[in-house]
């Protein structure tokens, strides 16, 4: 093929690809990018009980969030809950993925379906299940913990952060298992056998061979779980009740109860910014630390 023909094929390909992607691009610019920009604008508007939203440019909402300790406490609670839920998913989900990966074909398929399936079941239904299990002082979870002798008096789970963390960890667990599972698929089982033939024990193999190789999977799972937990709505709203607010439920309140849209928009934009910074920052750190594995 001559250079000229090559260039013309390239032009034709570029034209074809733009023609194919243009409808979707227009949809996304019109119905996603513009609404997001409008929301950022909204967070700078003024609002009053009687005058409603005034399209002016002021920093009132941002100053209120920065100065009122209520918001600092609420954001701190949001990220604390998300972090604890992430830790639980990592500590339980990573070993489970490893165990799953060592099962034989048929069992592997069945349990993978059982553990990943809940991901697609309505979050409302799953959280309702936890509300039923927690239910008051003689809920099933408390009865179980007391009969095992782990606790003496019933623990409060409903309307507490503990309950929110447990339910969130359950809701997010499939993402962690999936992420570690994907990392395990890249591990060569022969390395494990080689270590064993050289006399390494089970614990040494996990610590020195498996863990370093699946760590990128654990960390990228942690990023997904953390960002989804920090912006979760259904679980904190149902388990936390009306008083224990996190960022998403507070924004919902401002929009649909108080009707202070500009303040709600500011809370949402701040949540988005914080998450983008955390996700991009930790992604960069992971990629630098584990450049070898990703190559």
């Amino acid at each position, binding site marked *: 093929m001559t250079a000229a023909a090559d260039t013309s094929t390239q032009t034709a*390909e*570029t034209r*074809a690809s*733009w023609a*194919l*992607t243009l*409808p*979707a*691009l227009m*949809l*996304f610019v019109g*119905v*996603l990018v513009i*609404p*997001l920009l*409008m*929301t950022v604008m*909204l967070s700078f508007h003024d609002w009053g009980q009687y005058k409603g939203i005034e399209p002016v440019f002021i920093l009132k909402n941002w100053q209120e969030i920065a100065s009122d300790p209520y918001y600092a406490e609420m954001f701190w609670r949001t990220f604390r809950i998300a972090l604890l839920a992430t830790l639980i998913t990592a500590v339980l989900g990573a*070993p*489970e993925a490893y*165990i799953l990966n*060592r099962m034989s074909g048929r069992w592997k398929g069945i349990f*993978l*379906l*059982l*553990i990943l*399936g*809940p*991901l*697609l*079941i*309505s*979050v*409302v*239904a799953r*959280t*309702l*299940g936890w*509300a*039923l299990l927690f*239910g008051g002082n003689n809920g099933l979870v408390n009865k179980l913990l007391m009969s095992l002798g782990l606790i003496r008096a019933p623990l409060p789970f409903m309307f507490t952060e503990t309950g929110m963390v447990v339910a969130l960890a*359950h809701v997010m*667990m499939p993402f962690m298992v*999936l992420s570690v*599972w994907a990392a395990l698929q890249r591990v060569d089982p022969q390395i*494990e056998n080689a270590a064993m033939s050289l006399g390494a024990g089970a614990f040494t193999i996990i610590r020195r061979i498996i863990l370093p190789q699946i760590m990128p999977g654990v960390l990228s799972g942690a990023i997904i779980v953390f960002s989804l937990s*920090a*912006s*979760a*709505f*259904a679980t904190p709203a*149902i388990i936390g009740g009306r008083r224990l607010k996190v*960022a*998403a439920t507070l*924004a919902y309140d401002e929009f*649909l109860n108080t009707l202070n*849209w500009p303040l709600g*928009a500011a809370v949402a934009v701040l*949540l*988005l910014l914080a998450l983008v910074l955390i996700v991009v920052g930790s992604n960069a750190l992971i990629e630098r630390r584990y450049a070898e594995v990703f190559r």
Partner: protein
Amino acid sequence: MRTNGPLALTFHALFVVFMLAPIVVVCLVAFTPEGFLSLPVNGFSLRWFRTIASYPEFVHAFWVSLGLGMVSSFVALLFAVPAALAIARYRFRGRDVLAALFLSPLMIPHVVLGIAFLRFFTSLGLGGTFAALLIAHVIVVFPFALRLTLAAATGMDRSVEMAAVSLGAGGFTLFRRVTLPLILPGVISGWALAFIQSFDDLTMTVFLAAPGTETLPVRMFLYIQDNIDPLVTSVSASVIAITMTALILLDRFYGLDRVLAGKGDPGR
């Protein structure tokens, strides 16, 4: 390859119990014959499933969710299939940016999307309408439709297409008779996954739904906020049954791990 020891299997059993307990509890309570919540359940009755029929708001919400899920995932495919074909085949300027934009609804918290859509559609005078819900759902399910179609289009054998071209096929005929049948499993799975996402979405939809356009998750959520009784567990159990059916079909048809891992995802 070593096998799992007794300690690992005990951990595994406890883990599976943890994952299934809330779902099993909802389904058990749904069959209670009592007029109140009780655990453990004594007896078995379909009483609360029959009661659903006398709550028109739940029945109406179910039809809204079903229609919304089916139409929005279909519309999403109309935009996603051409885009996936372009991204899978051609290396053009802006390709990575476009792919990132199209997958961005996965990254943006749904609460932010809900607020953005509420603001946008209200200012257009479309607040609380089915049309607004539909467009918002198309955006949210788009990444799922795109990813599975993309995976199918990337793995497609193009020699069949070339044979068709050499025999004189072109344009839409080529797409309808050759390309589409080849990528159909991916397209159908993309539709099913998009449907499930739309059918289950609460966080974004709760901002947009008004009385009359409330979806089933929104109706369930608002109900739970007031009180938790066996009625809402029987509605949840029905939703779980619907999702499980879709899931098993999806697993048979395409493989659940492939669906969820989103193979063929650019940049990953």
